[in-house]
């Protein structure tokens, strides 16, 4: 699905990715974890072509993405902070994205799921953080792309919406889609992810299933296991 080889990226003097290699198999849910500033968002943005790598190669669906843009049609992306043009109404935004992608979105069900009907004619600048995140989720889930990239999907959601989100994710899994998710909430990760990719200092420090992670670190709990991973690195 995605093949990344020797990816390097520097922002000024700050070397964020230092030769990262990663293979994403189709039909699985990957959780990309790591401490703040470990390069998770840079990695995701590189896959989307928003950040241009200094060195290395990224292939999506078997084709290199350098200078390409059509492959983004195969990717649905949920950005970390829902920054939308404030003067648009929710309804207009959804329509605009459908028009820009040239795709018939399937937003009706999602709008009902997240009870967004009363907000459809409000301007985006007047929405609360949680509601914005729900709109963000509708935009990401309304298309039927093979690959879904969710950057911190649970930010700002109330428990009810969080349950709905998990249901959505498991529906997508059932359709055989590939998901990349970043999150800082370990309980959420444990519930939804098949595999963990742990980033540290711009490289992949650990990659494997949750069971592997627990075995390697001798921990029963993912949160502690991750803490141990981080700690061993710092001690070493």
């Amino acid at each position: 699905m995605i093949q990344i080889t020797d990816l390097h990226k520097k922002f000024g003097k700050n070397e964020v990715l230092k030769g990262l290699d990663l293979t994403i198999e189709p039909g699985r849910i990957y959780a990309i974890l790591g401490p703040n500033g470990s390069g998770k968002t840079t990695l995701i943005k590189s896959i989307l072509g928003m950040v241009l790598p200094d060195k290395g190669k990224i292939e999506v669906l078997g084709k290199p993405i350098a200078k390409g843009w059509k492959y983004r049609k195969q990717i649905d992306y949920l950005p970390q902070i829902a920054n939308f043009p404030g003067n648009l109404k929710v309804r207009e935004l959804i329509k605009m994205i459908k028009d820009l992608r040239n795709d018939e979105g399937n937003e009706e069900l999602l709008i009902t799921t997240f009870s967004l009907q009363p907000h459809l004619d409000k301007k985006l600048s007047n929405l609360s953080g949680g509601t914005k995140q729900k709109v963000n989720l509708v935009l990401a889930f309304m298309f039927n792309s093979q690959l879904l990239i969710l950057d911190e999907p649970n930010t700002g959601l109330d428990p009810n919406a969080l349950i709905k989100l998990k249901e959505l994710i498991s529906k997508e899994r059932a359709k055989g889609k590939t998901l990349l998710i970043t999150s800082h909430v370990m309980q959420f990760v444990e519930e939804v992810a098949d595999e963990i990719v742990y980033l540290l200092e711009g490289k992949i420090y650990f990659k494997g299933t949750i069971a592997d992670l627990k075995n390697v670190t001798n921990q029963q709990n993912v949160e502690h296991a991750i803490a141990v991973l981080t700690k061993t690195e710092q001690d070493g």
Partner: protein
Amino acid sequence: MGKVLKYSFYDLVRSRWSYIYFLFYLALGFVLLFLNSDLSKAVITLMNIIIVLVPLIGTIFGTMYYYNSKEFTELLLAQPIKRSHIFLGQYFGVAGSLSLSLAVGLGVPFMTYGLLRSNAIFDFSLLLGVGIFLTLIFTGLAFNIAISNENKIKGFGYAVLLWLFMAVIYDGIFLLSLIVFEEYPLDTFSMVATTLNPIDLSRTLILLKLDISALLGYTGAVFKRFFGTQLGFWVSMLVLVLWTLIPILRLKYKASRKDF
């Protein structure tokens, strides 16, 4: 590009500032024609305003739009749209809506005062053409400054400085150098210096077309010899086109190499 252009254009056409800009020209046109119903003279007064105001509004609007639509840009970047189309679409959206305000705002009063039946129509069209060129040029320069400066305040500062330089300081330096080097033949120098600044070039083009170059004295005669000819006119147009194209190409280049 068409779709990005469409959304940027609609977004701007609905904005309060476009209306203010449009109403300003509308009021200006009517007031000028009311005070002075000679169309040709109104064109000259308008020229003096347009030549300073259009670049100022172009630079300010351009930088403001770029910084304010950061979210929109980021949203678009994750969509299957070519990068250069995102930025060019936004650029043409801004330049297009400003040009529309200018053309319609001035067009309506001049039409009602019988522009189509007078022979000032060519002068007026030239004025509008120059105004649209200046909008394209200065919006383009503004986008260039904004894309190269993450810091809003800095970008805004540079943009205003650029306008100040082109509209005021350049002329000052030009005049000073004419005084300092008055012993030397300055025909070629002054002609080249005028051609290089789009604001000066626009002013000269219109003045010469209005046939009031006698006001410029000796320089006027020299200018008339060059700019008054077919060749001079086309060279000036070519320079204006280059002033428009170079910022667009640099914008495209910068956009293809920037991280978001």
